[in-house]
């Protein structure tokens, strides 16, 4: 299949900004992406905007038109909602729009504002990514859902909290130079193990923070990019989307992520690559266990093997496969609707040398972004390559 060039990226700082409206944050990210691409608002053909709880957090439905207005256009736009995978799927829809030939210049991104809801309100909002009837009404919070998967993983494959703690320590360390990160704070394994329990066996430092922020990408068709002499350094060459049952109770295994596997296989096939070709990944580590489930679902590790990867140093900056050089959701932050686009932005900037951690991967030409929704009932995977 044809590719879509990532000609521009932009993001706000991720953090706690309860007073900033979504339209304000998306304008900052989107206009930065347009500037990076060297394009104007009038050049935009279509906007794909990821957002999860805006209807609750900002009392605002129909956010698509507001996203376009924030970019200085009334170009057709829609809000894409797939919980934490909202903007990963906005990117996928944007890639499909470019590949279909219907659009040449597309903005894909997303925004989330949650800190204004308070911890209880945000916990309530995030729980909506689970099944209302059979999970939320049985007391399942979002951390609880991942805790259920963690316990099932330990039971099926082994591993312990200390293995998970090394993932948190690694991702915090990676974020230390990322000035857009929510948490720029060095932590130790003991800090993680001693952090307050939120849903046992997961503690506070196993979890990503509740973040506000926005991210955006400008995607171009090859013909438009060449005709206008725009950045053709990095392209999305593969895209995949996988699904699963909403509720954990309907799955055969609670310790694996088949939607990730399906999305990855589709994206690898689309790009014509195998997992062995990949030199860096940004994966959906909303909780430490999620990084493990992702790496195994992506086929980068066998089932039961990724739990010790950070502890062994393999997924660290100087390891065989650097994972979440941006800091991941864990430290960079997780403004839910912005996360998928921010991951693709990080991979593009790591590949083209403009990311603050790019020096760790200067010889890498193929990267991957993995974004998961709910307890991985939705997964979006994108393969990015340095254009040859």
């Amino acid at each position: 299949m044809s590719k879509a060039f990532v000609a521009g990226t932009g993001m706000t700082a991720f953090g706690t900004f309860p007073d900033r409206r979504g339209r304000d944050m998306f304008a900052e990210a989107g206009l930065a992406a347009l500037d990076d691409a060297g394009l104007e608002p009038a050049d935009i053909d279509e906007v794909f905007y990821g957002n999860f709880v805006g209807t609750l957090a900002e009392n605002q439905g129909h956010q698509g038109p507001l996203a376009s207005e924030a970019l200085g256009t009334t170009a057709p736009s829609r809000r894409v909602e797939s919980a934490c995978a909202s903007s990963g799927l906005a990117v996928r829809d944007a890639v499909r729009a470019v590949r279909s030939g219907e659009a040449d210049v597309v903005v894909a991104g997303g925004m989330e504002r949650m800190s204004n809801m308070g911890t209880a309100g945000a916990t309530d909002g995030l729980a909506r990514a689970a099944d209302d009837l059979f999970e939320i009404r049985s007391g399942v919070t979002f951390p609880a859902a991942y805790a259920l998967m963690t316990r099932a993983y330990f039971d099926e494959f082994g591993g312990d909290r200390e293995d998970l703690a090394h993932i948190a320590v690694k991702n915090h360390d990676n974020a230390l130079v990322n000035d857009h990160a929510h948490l720029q704070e060095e932590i130790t394994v003991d800090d993680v193990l001693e952090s307050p329990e939120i849903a046992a066996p997961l503690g506070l430092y196993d979890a990503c923070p509740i973040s506000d922020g926005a991210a955006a990408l400008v995607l171009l068709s090859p013909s438009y990019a060449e005709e206008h002499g725009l950045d053709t350094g990095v392209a999305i060459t593969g895209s995949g989307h996988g699904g699963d049952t909403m509720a954990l109770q309907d799955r055969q295994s609670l310790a694996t992520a088949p939607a990730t596997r399906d999305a990855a296989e589709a994206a690898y096939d689309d790009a014509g690559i195998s997992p062995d070709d990949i030199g860096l990944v940004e994966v959906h580590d909303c909780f430490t266990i999620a990084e493990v489930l992702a790496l195994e679902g992506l086929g980068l590790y066998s089932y039961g093997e990724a739990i010790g990867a950070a502890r062994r140093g393999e997924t660290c900056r100087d390891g065989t496969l650097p994972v979440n050089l941006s800091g991941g959701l864990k430290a960079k932050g997780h403004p839910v609707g912005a996360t998928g686009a921010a991951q693709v932005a990080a991979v593009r900037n790591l590949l083209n040398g403009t990311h603050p951690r790019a020096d760790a991967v200067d010889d890498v030409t193929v990267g991957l972004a993995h974004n998961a929704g709910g307890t991985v009932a939705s997964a979006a995977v994108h393969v990015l390559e340095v254009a040859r």
Partner: protein
Amino acid sequence: MTDAHEDGYDAFLDALEAGEGYYYECSNGHALVPPRHVCPHCGDRELDQVTLPETGELVTHTTVAVPTPQFEDDAPYVTAIATFGSVKLTGILRDVDPSDVKIGQSVTVTVESAETTDERTITFHPHN
């Protein structure tokens, strides 16, 4: 949440509460909790109603310290997934010390009110 009756789901809770729990099984043996029109695993529309076994076995569990507002007064509480024969249910496990809960533990299921909201909640109890 509203007071409205929800077809399929409320009938299922009524049956659980009366000790007459059931589930659906498709022709290919996939076990499902109502309400369902069709099996999500294989698309089969032939769903037989099967009696829910009286006891189940915990397959995973967590102790929730930070709840949603609907469970504010219930926390800390144990939420678990248990398998009853071939079907799995998610519920709150009561009458246990959270540190004693074990995968493989035998439980019964019923419907009780959540402390915070009085909403009907699928509830497990240890089975000795």
